C-alpha cells in the first residue's frame, strides 16, 4: 500500500515508528515523502511524482505555525500579514487539488493548532484574535470533509491539548531540523495516524465482554447487597456510572456488549431491575454469561452464540487473575489491563484504540438489537425438529437492491470487514466502489433480510460483472454477514443471480472462491447450489443445463 506524506516540516522523523506501528495492518507500507520544501510544488504541478504515483493514502500535515511565526503583524486583526493569509488560502486550494486529482485515494488532513509561543497572552481574545483565526480555519477544514468525500480530518489539535506542547515538542529540533516533535510527540502522533488508518481499513473489534463486580459497579453484589454497591450519579459511585455511560456510548455505535461474570443470576437480575443508577439494562447485552463456570469457557460460548471470532472480543475485568487466565488460554482475545483506580475506568475505556470509525451507518445503530434477536432465534430453532420447518416458521423476506447513495456506506463497510462468508475477500475501497458504479459491466447489489422477529437490515452484498464476449456473468464477490449464516439465504441470492443471467441472455455463471484462514463458511456455497468445478476453486453453472428452484421459505422482493 502506497502512503504519501505531504508536510511543510520534517515529518520523516515519524517514519520509523509509523512503519513499526502500521505493520499490524499486515499491509506492505511504502512511504513516499517529497521533503518539506516540496509541499506546494508537488501539488501545483500536475506532472509531479505524487500524481504519477497515485498513493492510496495521503497524509497532509501542514503546521501553519511555521508560516504564522514570521508573519505576525500586530497592525492587523487577526494579527497576521497578508502574506500569511495568502499562504493559508493557498493551502486550502492545495488540499482541494489533492482531493480532486487523487479522487480514488483517501486524504487525511491534520487540523490546525496555535503554538502557544505565538499566542498573545492576555491580549488573546480580548484584543487580538489569533486563536479565533485558527479556530475558523478548523471550521473551514471541517466543511471540506463534508464537501469532499475522500477527505478525513485528523484531530491534531485535540492530541496537543491532551498531552500539552511542553510534553510533545522540543524546540531545539525546531531550529536544527525543522520539526518540533520530541520522542513522546512522535510516538503519540504515529498512534493517532494509526487509529485513522485502522478506521479506514475497518480494523476494529466487534464486542466488549464485561465483568460485573468491581467493574460495572463497585463492590461485590453477592456479599454487599444492592444497597451497598458503589454506583450513583455523584461521589465515588459516579466513576462506575460514567464507565457504564462510556459502554453505552460504544453500544450506540454498534459495538456488541456481553456479560461474563461469576455471579448468581437472580442477584444480578435484582440490580438490573431495581438499582436506580444502572445505566445499562439487560437488553443492552446480547449474551449474558452469569454463572460460576470458567470464564474461558464462557467467552468461547459467547463467541459461538454471536457467531463472531474470538479475535473480535475485548474482555474487561478488574481481576488480574481472570485476565491472566483468559490471556493465557485465549490469546486471540484482547485483554487490556483495566486500571486499578475506578476513576480512570471511563477514560481508559474511551481511549482503547480498538473501535475506530470514520462513519456510522444505520446498521451500526441497529446492530445490537439484531444480535439480541439472533440469540432469541437460536432458542426457537431448538424447538423445531428439522431445519426446514424452522426456516419456514421465520417467514423470511429478502429484499435485493442495486446500490444507491443510501446503501453505499453499508456496502463498503461489508466489503471492508466481512471475513467469514466472503467468497473472494476483495477489499474494495469506497473509491473502488464509486468507480464500479460508473461502469455498465459492474453491478453491485445489496440485500436485506427481515423475518417475524424483526428486520436484520442490510446483511449482504454481491458484485456481478457481465462479460458479453464470453457470454458469462461472473460473481466477483459474494458477501454475507455472519449473523444470517445458516438460513440458506445464499440459495435465494444465487436463484436471483441465475434469473439475472437469464434475463441478460448470458450462457453461464462463473464464480471463484479465494480461500482465506477465515472464510470456511462460504467455501461450499457454489458446490451446494449445483455449480460444477472447472478447476480448483473455480466454479461454473451453464444456464441451459439447470433449473434452480427457490426454496419455499423465502419471499424475494427485488427493487
Amino acid at each position, binding site marked *: 500500500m502506497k502512503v504519501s506524506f505531504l508536510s511543510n516540516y*520534517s515529518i520523516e*522523523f515519524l517514519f520509523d515508528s509509523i512503519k513499526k506501528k502500521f505493520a499490524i495492518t499486515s499491509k506492505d507500507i511504502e512511504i513516499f515523502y517529497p521533503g518539506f520544501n516540496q509541499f506546494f510544488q508537488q501539488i501545483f504541478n500536475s506532472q509531479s511524482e505524487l500524481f504519477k504515483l497515485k498513493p492510496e493514502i495521503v497524509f497532509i500535515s501542514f503546521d501553519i505555525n511555521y508560516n504564522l511565526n514570521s508573519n505576525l503583524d500586530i497592525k492587523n486583526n487577526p494579527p497576521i500579514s497578508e502574506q500569511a493569509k495568502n499562504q493559508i488560502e493557498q493551502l486550502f486550494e492545495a488540499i482541494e487539488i489533492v482531493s480532486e486529482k487523487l479522487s480514488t485515494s483517501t486524504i487525511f488532513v491534520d487540523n490546525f493548532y496555535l503554538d502557544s509561543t505565538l499566542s498573545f497572552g492576555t491580549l488573546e481574545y480580548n484584543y487580538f484574535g489569533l486563536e479565533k483565526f485558527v479556530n475558523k480555519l478548523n471550521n473551514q477544514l471541517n466543511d471540506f470533509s463534508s464537501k469532499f468525500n475522500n477527505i478525513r480530518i485528523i484531530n491534531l489539535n485535540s492530541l496537543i491539548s491532551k498531552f500539552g506542547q511542553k510534553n510533545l515538542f*522540543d524546540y*531545539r*529540533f525546531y531550529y*536544527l*531540523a525543522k520539526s518540533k516533535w*520530541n*520522542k513522546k510527540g512522535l510516538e503519540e502522533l504515529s498512534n493517532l495516524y494509526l487509529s485513522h488508518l485502522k478506521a479506514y481499513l475497518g480494523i476494529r473489534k466487534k464486542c466488549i465482554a464485561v465483568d460485573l463486580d468491581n467493574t460495572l459497579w463497585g463492590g461485590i453484589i453477592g456479599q454487599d447487597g444492592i444497597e451497598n454497591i458503589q454506583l450513583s450519579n455523584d461521589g465515588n459511585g459516579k466513576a462506575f456510572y460514567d464507565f457504564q455511560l462510556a459502554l453505552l456510548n460504544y453500544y450506540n455505535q454498534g459495538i456488541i456488549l456481553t456479560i461474563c461474570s461469576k455471579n448468581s443470576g437472580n442477584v444480578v437480575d435484582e440490580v438490573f431491575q431495581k438499582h436506580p443508577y444502572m445505566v445499562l439494562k439487560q437488553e443492552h447485552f446480547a449474551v449474558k454469561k452469569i454463572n460460576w463456570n470458567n470464564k474461558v469457557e464462557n467467552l468461547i460460548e459467547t463467541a459461538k452464540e454471536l457467531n463472531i471470532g474470538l479475535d473480535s472480543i475485548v474482555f474487561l475485568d478488574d481481576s488480574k487473575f481472570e485476565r491472566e487466565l483468559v490471556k493465557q488460554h485465549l490469546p486471540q482475545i484482547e485483554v487490556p489491563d483495566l486500571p486499578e483506580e475506578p476513576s480512570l475506568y471511563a477514560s481508559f475505556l474511551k481511549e482503547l484504540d480498538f473501535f475506530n470509525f470514520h462513519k456510522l451507518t444505520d446498521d451500526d445503530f441497529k446492530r445490537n438489537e439484531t444480535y439480541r434477536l439472533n440469540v432469541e432465534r437460536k432458542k426457537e430453532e431448538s424447538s423445531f425438529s428439522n431445519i426446514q420447518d424452522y426456516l419456514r416458521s421465520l417467514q423470511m423476506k429478502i429484499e435485493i437492491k442495486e446500490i444507491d447513495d443510501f446503501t453505499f456506506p453499508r456496502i463498503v463497510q461489508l466489503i471492508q470487514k466481512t471475513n467469514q462468508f466472503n467468497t473472494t475477500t476483495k477489499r474494495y475501497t469506497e473509491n473502488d466502489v464509486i468507480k464500479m458504479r460508473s461502469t455498465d459491466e459492474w453491478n453491485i447489489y445489496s440485500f436485506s433480510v427481515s423475518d417475524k422477529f424483526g428486520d436484520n437490515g442490510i446483511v449482504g452484498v454481491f458484485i456481478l460483472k457481465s462479460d458479453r464476449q464470453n457470454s458469462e456473468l461472473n460473481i466477483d464477490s459474494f458477501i454475507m454477514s455472519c449473523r444470517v449464516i445458516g438460513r440458506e439465504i445464499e440459495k435465494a441470492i444465487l436463484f436471483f443471480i441465475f434469473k439475472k443471467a437469464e434475463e441478460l441472455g448470458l450462457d453461464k455463471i462463473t464464480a471463484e472462491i479465494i480461500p482465506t484462514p477465515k472464510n470456511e463458511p462460504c467455501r461450499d456455497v457454489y458446490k451446494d447450489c449445483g455449480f460444477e468445478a472447472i478447476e480448483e476453486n473455480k466454479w461454473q453453472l451453464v444456464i441451459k443445463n439447470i433449473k434452480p428452484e427457490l426454496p419455499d421459505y423465502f419471499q424475494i422482493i427485488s427493487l
Partner: protein
Amino acid sequence: MISDKLKSIILRELNLTEIEISDETIAKDIPGWDSLKNFMIILAVEEEFGVKFLTEEILSIKNVGDIQKLIDFKIRNN
C-alpha cells in the same frame, strides 16, 4: 573510550547488529547514519543517560567520541 551503553544505543537506533565504532568514527562512515538518525540517536542518548544537550552542543558533535565526551561532561556537572 566509547561506553558499551552508547554503542548499543547507536546500533539499536540504526538497526544494526555489529559494527566497528571508535572515538573517531563519523556518521558518514556508518551505513544509514543520516541527519534523521542522528537526531534519533541524540534523543535516545538523552533519555537513557538522563542528560540534556544544548542546541550548540548538538551542533558541535563531530564524531562518536564527541558524544561520549558530552555525556561524561553532563554527568560530571549534574
